[in-house]
C-alpha cells in the first residue's frame, strides 16, 4: 500500500495499515502538526486533507488512504513563502494556545480550494466541526473573510 503525502509517495507498512491515519502521521512519519484532541471525530484538531476533502485523521484508517493523496499542515508552505491561509492566520494573530490551529487551517484551506467565495453558511458548515476552547473563532472568520476578499 502507498499514498502521496505532501507531494511525495510513501509506503504504508503492513503493520501500520490498521492504525488510524493520525497515528500513522504522528508516530510513523513524525508529522506532529495534526493533533489528538478527542479521538472520535468531534473536535477537528486532527484535520488533514484527503483527496481534497477536510478529513478527521483520528477516525480514518491508514489503509483507507491507500492510493490517495494526503496533505498536512506541514506541506502547505512553499520554500520561501507561507501558504496564504497560514499567512492570514499570522497577520491576524489567530492562534492563542495554537493546539487546534493546524486543524482549523486545514479546514479553511479545503474550504477555500473548493469554494473561492464561500457564503456565510458554507463557512459555518466547513468550520463548525473545528473546536477552539481559547475562543479564536471571530479571528478565524476574519482571516477567512480577508482571504476571500483578496481572491476577488
Amino acid at each position, binding site marked *: 500500500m502507498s499514498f502521496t503525502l505532501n507531494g511525495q509517495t510513501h509506503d504504508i507498512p503492513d503493520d501500520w495499515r490498521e492504525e488510524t491515519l493520525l497515528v500513522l502521521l504522528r508516530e510513523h512519519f513524525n508529522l506532529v502538526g495534526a493533533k489528538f484532541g478527542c479521538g472520535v471525530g468531534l473536535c477537528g484538531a486532527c484535520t488533514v486533507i484527503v483527496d481534497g476533502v477536510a478529513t478527521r485523521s483520528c477516525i480514518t484508517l491508514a489503509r483507507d488512504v491507500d492510493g490517495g493523496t494526503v496533505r498536512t499542515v506541514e506541506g502547505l508552505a512553499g520554500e520561501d513563502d*507561507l501558504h496564504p491561509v*497560514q499567512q492570514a*492566520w499570522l497577520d491576524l494573530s489567530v492562534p492563542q494556545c495554537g493546539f487546534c490551529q493546524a486543524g482549523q487551517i486545514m479546514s479553511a484551506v479545503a474550504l477555500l480550494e473548493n469554494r473561492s467565495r464561500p457564503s456565510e453558511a458554507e463557512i*459555518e458548515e466547513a468550520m463548525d466541526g473545528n473546536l477552539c*476552547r481559547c475562543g479564536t*473563532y471571530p479571528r478565524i472568520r476574519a482571516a477567512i473573510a480577508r482571504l476571500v476578499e483578496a481572491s476577488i
Partner: protein
Amino acid sequence: MKRRTFLAGVGGGIFALIGAGTLVYSQIPVIPKRPEPDAKTAIGWISFNNNRFSLTLPRVEMGQNIATGLKQIACTELGADWDRVDVAFHDTGMDRVKATVGSESMMLFAEPLAQACASLRDALEAGRDSGEIAVTPRPGSELRAMKKCGYIGRSPEIVQGQDIVTGRPLYAGDVMRSGQLFGRVLRAPESVERSTRPLSWNADDARTVPGFVAIVEDCGPAIGKAQGLGIVAERSGALDAIAEALAVSWDVTGTPENVDIQETIDIDANLAAGGLPHSVLDGVPEDGKYDVDQRLDVPLAAHSPIEPRVAVAEWQGGALTVWSGTQDAFYVRDVLLDAFGADGVTLQSMRVGGGFGGKVSATVELEAAALARGVGAPVKVQWTRAQEFTLGYHRPPASHRVRARVFDGKVTDWDHGQVSSHIFFTSAVAPKWMQRATDALIGDDGVARGMVPPYALGRARAAYDVKRLAVHTAAWRGLGAGPNGLAIECAMDEAARVANEDPLEFRLKHIDDRLLRAVLQRVAEISDWEHPPCYEDGLRKGRGIACGIYKGTSYAAVVADVAVEDNGATKVEKLWCAHDCGMVVNPDQVRAQCEGNLAWSIGMIFTDNLPTDKGVVMAQTFIDAPIPRNSDVPDMVIELVESARAPQGAGETAIVAGPAAIANAIRAATGVRIEQFPLKQGDLAV
C-alpha cells in the same frame, strides 16, 4: 490474577520485566511553593552570548502569548531588535518561579524582567562581556519598558506563531524520544473519592494485541483514591485494544460523600439548615421582604482544553526528565521527587495546548514516570478525552441566592449566599483531614473571589460554604469570579427593574470607582447603548449590560445583543467589551484575551456542564459535555481603556461581566430570568 511479574515479548524483540508494586506513595501532599518574583531572580531569565540575547521565560505559554509580551519588555529595555532575542521555555534547572495562574504574569514579572534587562544593558555598555551581572534596581520611572516606547504598546508577530501555523513540534505530545513507548493508566469507572484498585485482568488476551509491550502494576500514586493498572504499547493506537482485552475488574470500596451534587450544594436547603460559615461581607440587612429574590445555579464543568493532559518521561539511571505542558513545572517536579525519590528530576515545560487553571496538579507526569521506570524506556502518556472528564478536576458547581431591597432608586439591603466546592484547597490535592482544618479556619478564597460586589449596596452581607464532593473541583478560569459576577450582575439587573431605571444608569449610581465607571460609560458609547435592537422577523431581541472588577486590578464592562426564536433557540448576535488593565504592553493580545473570555462567557450561559450520576462523571466525549462552536461565538468589538497604571492582568477579567450581559440580554428579550445554567432551549420557547 494477583500481583506478580510479567514478561512480555514483542515483535521487535523488546522485553520488559516489570516488578510488582513495592512503593508506598506518601499520603502527605506536596504543598506548592509560590515565591514572588524579584529582580534578583530575574537575572536568571536573561543572558547574552555570541551577540545574541536569550530570554528564558519565567512563565508558561498557554495561549495568553506571554512569550510575546515578555519579549517586548526585554527587547525594549535592552534596546535590542526583535530578531536578536531568542525565547526559550524554562525547565526546573532555573530558580523556582510560581505557577502561571491568576493572570499575574505582566503584573508581577514585567518589572523584575525589565530591571534585569536594564542592568544587563548597563553592563554591556560598560564593556563587560562575561560573568554574572548583579541587578541594581532603579526607580520604575527609569525603566524604558515601563513607558510607551520601543516595542511597548505594539503587537509584533506572536512568538512561535510561524511554528504553530506550520505544524512544528511545540507541545509535550509532540516530543518523541528515541525508543519511546506509549502508555496509559487504567482506573475504575467510579468516583475518584471511592477506594478502587485493579483486582483481576486478562493478561493473556492483552498480550495478543499487536504492539503490546507490558502491563505495569506499579503505575504511580492514586488519583484521589483510584489506583490504576498501567499498560504500555509500541504505538498509541494499540492502547484502546489492550485496555479492552484486559477487561480489568475492580475492587471498589467505600462510599464517597455527597454523591448527589445538586442536593449537597442546594443553597436554599443549606440556608434552611443554618447559616453559611464563611463571611465575605458582614453588613446586617434589615428583616422583611425583599424586592429581588433570585436563585442562580451553575453546574460542574470541565476545562476542556483541546489538548488533553500529556507528558513524556525518560529515566537515565536514577535521574528523571519529564516534558509536560503544565502550568506549574516546579510543583510537578516536587511531586515527582516526592513520589519517586529520584536522584534528580528535571521538568521541561512545553507550550500548553490550553490551560485555564486545569493543568496545575500532577497527573500524567506521575503516570508517565512510573510507566517509564517500569518498562525501562521513555513513555508518553496522553489522557483520552474520557479520562480528562473522569480523572481531571473541574469547575465547582455553585448554588447562589441573592436578595436585594430597593428604596428610592437605590439598593439598601443586599444578601448573597453561596454553596460551592473547593478551589484552593481542592480535594484533588488536599486530603480530607487537611480540608477539615481549612474549612474550619479559613474557608476557600477561590470560591469567594469576586463575591464582593463593586457597588455601594447599603447593608450588604455575603457568605458561603464549601462542600467536599464525589467529583474533584479546583481552579477554573477566574475561579469563583465568573459565577459570582453572574449572580451579582443578574440581581443588579433585577434591582434596576424594580427601581424602574435604566440598568446602566442604575449601576453608575452605585459605583464610586472611577475606573469601573469609565469602562461602563465606554462600552455604552461603543455599543450605542441607547438604541437596542428590537423585535424583528419573528425574533425576540434584547440587549444586556454588566460589569465587574477582577482581583481589584482589572476592569471590564460588556454589552450583549441576543436574538431568540419562538422555539427558544438563542443566538448571541454581537458583543462589545470595554477593558482596562492599565498600561497595555500588547494591545492585540489583550484583545485576544478579552475575546477568549467572551467565548467562555457564552460557554457559561449555553454549554458548560459536566453531567454526573451518583458522583460518577458520565461524560465521555464532547457530545456529552459540549463547548461553544464557531457559529456560537459572534463578532466582538473590544475597546481598551488605558488608565495610567502599571500593567495588570487580562486573562480572566471579561468573564466577570460577559455571562451576565448575555443573561440580562435574554431577560430583556424574553422576560425570562434564567436560574439554572446552562440554558436549555426549552427554557425560552413560546
